[in-house]
């Protein structure tokens, strides 16, 4: 079984955590934002993103020459934890910060980095993730949106679906087929293109989330021209490039903490009720959270040391276990205290319950379903 490293925060890191926390508390008190559950995917607030950008807290790990701070992966981990713990609305810039930036730093051209990264860092440029299609969910390699070579660029036709926040985003990293599907090597012939979502031929159509909120979208491409300089990395290498993103995407604190504001409120409520028996039951949640955080931090530390160890299996494991945990929180909470969940409730715990219950089904689906992750982990364990 893999042994993950432990993490002890340095004094500077603790100070950083404190700075972030203090800032967020001040903004919360000022009313700049309202805490909510699942704030990293469903809490979009461009004004807040710009404020975060001004603090230098987007692209924290990126090179200074692109506006980053050259801080460590663990520093970014701390920052993310603090956002999620207080339920701050970080969804608008989320994918650009977590995925697009690192992708461009790894595979992008100098021109792309210089153009996009400083904008992302300011909290002004948002990216969507264009992977899923109506007929390609878990079997992602079967995507059929295609790009054909023309003079100076590519012509894209097809459709993406479930694109979170595409209606707010400026661009989308889009997985397309650049050579015909070959049943023998399905992962070949895929490429990543940066599509301007305001370009001619792009249509973004909302799909209502089950709450009625506008969260994800369909994105249609009709003869959309994408210039050559918007190709990410190499043509035909899209699958491998996409996989490299996954470790970052799968094992972060957002796979554990989506319902943290509810856990916190549960504890506060039990304290107000002077309910020691309830706290005893809740201590199980705390222990589970602690034990998952150990794993997630361990993977972050491996990514930081970057010594080539394969983190894809533990990362998939963290996501499978972590999302199951965050999904279970409302169901456990309602057995410990009495709640009546509504989205416009006065009592914080009722509102957090409503947000958690309604968003929970997506936790174990988005970013790769648990079943698919189980398959990845099982094969990895057997191969060891």
């Amino acid at each position, binding site marked *: 079984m893999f042994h993950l490293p*432990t993490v002890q925060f340095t004094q500077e890191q603790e100070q950083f955590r*404190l700075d972030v*926390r203090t800032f967020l508390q001040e903004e919360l008190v000022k009313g700049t934002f309202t805490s909510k559950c699942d704030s990293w995917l469903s809490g979009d607030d461009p004004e807040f993103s710009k404020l975060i950008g001004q603090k230098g807290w987007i692209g924290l790990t990126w090179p200074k020459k692109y506006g980053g701070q050259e801080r460590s992966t663990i520093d970014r981990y701390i920052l993310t934890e603090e956002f999620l713990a*207080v339920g701050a609305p970080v969804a608008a810039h989320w994918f650009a910060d977590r995925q697009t930036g690192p992708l461009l730093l790894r595979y992008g051209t100098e021109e792309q980095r210089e153009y996009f990264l400083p904008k992302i860092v300011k909290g002004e440029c948002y990216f969507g993730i264009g992977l899923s299609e109506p007929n390609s969910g878990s079997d992602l390699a079967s995507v059929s949106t295609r790009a054909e070579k023309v003079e100076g660029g590519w012509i894209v036709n097809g459709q993406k679906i479930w694109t979170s926040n595409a209606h707010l985003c400026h661009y989308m990293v889009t997985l397309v087929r650049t050579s015909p599907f070959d049943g023998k090597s399905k992962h070949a012939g895929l490429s990543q293109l940066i599509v301007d979502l305001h370009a001619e031929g792009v249509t973004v159509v909302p799909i209502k989330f089950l709450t009625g909120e506008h969260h994800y979208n369909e994105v249609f491409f009709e003869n959309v021209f994408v210039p050559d300089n918007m190709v990410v990395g190499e043509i035909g290498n899209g699958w491998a490039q996409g996989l490299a993103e996954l470790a970052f995407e799968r094992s972060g604190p957002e796979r554990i903490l989506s319902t943290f504001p509810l856990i916190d409120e549960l504890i506060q409520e039990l304290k107000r009720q002077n309910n020691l028996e309830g706290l005893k039951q*809740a201590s*199980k949640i705390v222990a589970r959270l*602690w*034990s998952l955080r*150990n*794993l997630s931090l361990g993977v972050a530390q491996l990514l930081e040391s970057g010594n080539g160890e394969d983190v894809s299996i533990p990362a998939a494991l963290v996501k499978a276990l972590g999302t199951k945990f965050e999904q279970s929180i409302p169901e456990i909470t309602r057995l410990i205290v009495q709640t009546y969940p509504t989205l416009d409730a006065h009592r914080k715990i009722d509102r957090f319950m409503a947000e958690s219950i309604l968003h929970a089904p997506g936790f174990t689906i988005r970013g790769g379903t648990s079943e698919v992750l189980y398959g990845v982990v099982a094969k990895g364990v057997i191969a060891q």
Partner: protein
Amino acid sequence: MSEMRDMIVDVVERMLKEKVDKDLVDTVEQGHWAPELWDLFKENRMTAVAITEENGGAGGDIEDLLNIVRLTGKYAAPIPFTETTFANYLLEFTNLQVIEDLATYMLCPDQAFTLENGKLTGEAIHIPWARHTKNLVTLARSKDGTHLVEINLSQAEIKEATNLAGEPRDTVRFQHSTTSQVSAVLSPDKIRTITTLHTAFQLALMTGAIDKINDLTVQYTKEREQFGRPIHRFQLVQQHIVHLAGETAIALAAFNNVTEALLMNKQNSEVAYASIRFEEIIQTVTTIAHQVHAAIGTTHEHSLHQFTRRLWSWRDEGASTSYWTNLVATQLMESGDSLWGYLTPFSKSSPLLKVEG
């Protein structure tokens, strides 16, 4: 892990792999003693790890020792290694003289013996390996308070008994017996630390056994074929494998975080969290391992039960999960902080660090 620790772990694992097999564990479960294995550990000075050199120890720290204990759990090593080393660790911890011989301990405050004029009286049950060891390190209560006492077991009346795994858990009786050493009165803090350390040793043993059960089970899914293919090819078996891997990874990471916290002398709640979480881990791991092994795993012939029976015993030895649950609940109740603040304490506390709830 330090290089030194890697080396110790390596040496010990090789020793155990070579010397401990199912037959040896069976033999000791039937009431025999494993002199060769014990002598080997002693000759290699493994029994002196985490005792300072000025007190005749081999140096090393608590994290080194707990990692050796983890390995003895992984191989179900049938010797009182945990007992002897932890007894000595506690003697040094309470400023008493370290002893060379085989030793064991009794650390349940509810069972504390009565101490009067240097004489010990009373009865305690479930004392590990008492019949095979020479000295007992035990809690005892005098009119002044609770002490740690060392006493020679030759004066004791010992009634043999075993736990679910066939490990000696004897009843020990003293009647005005002469103690060898008595510590100063232990503060409640010190008693709590002893309980914390005791639980950490149990966690180490259990982590080892969990790791082994995972290995055995994964291996079995590769060997056993049904319907013309190895059973790991069935998705429902794969789901078992993933749950098992998840709980094992969590146990290992929890253990590593616990030992590191102890080493850095952080009196945090790591041991409490781990203890509460291990309760679930053991349920899942033992159930899944037996389910995947099916009939063969229910036989005495197979070695799986040597580890599952140990987990079913070890989880009930030392402070109970309800003790730790109560402790965490009480701390939460008394904490003026948000849960997040409580979970991410700063190493240097300052009034600045308080966050509005």
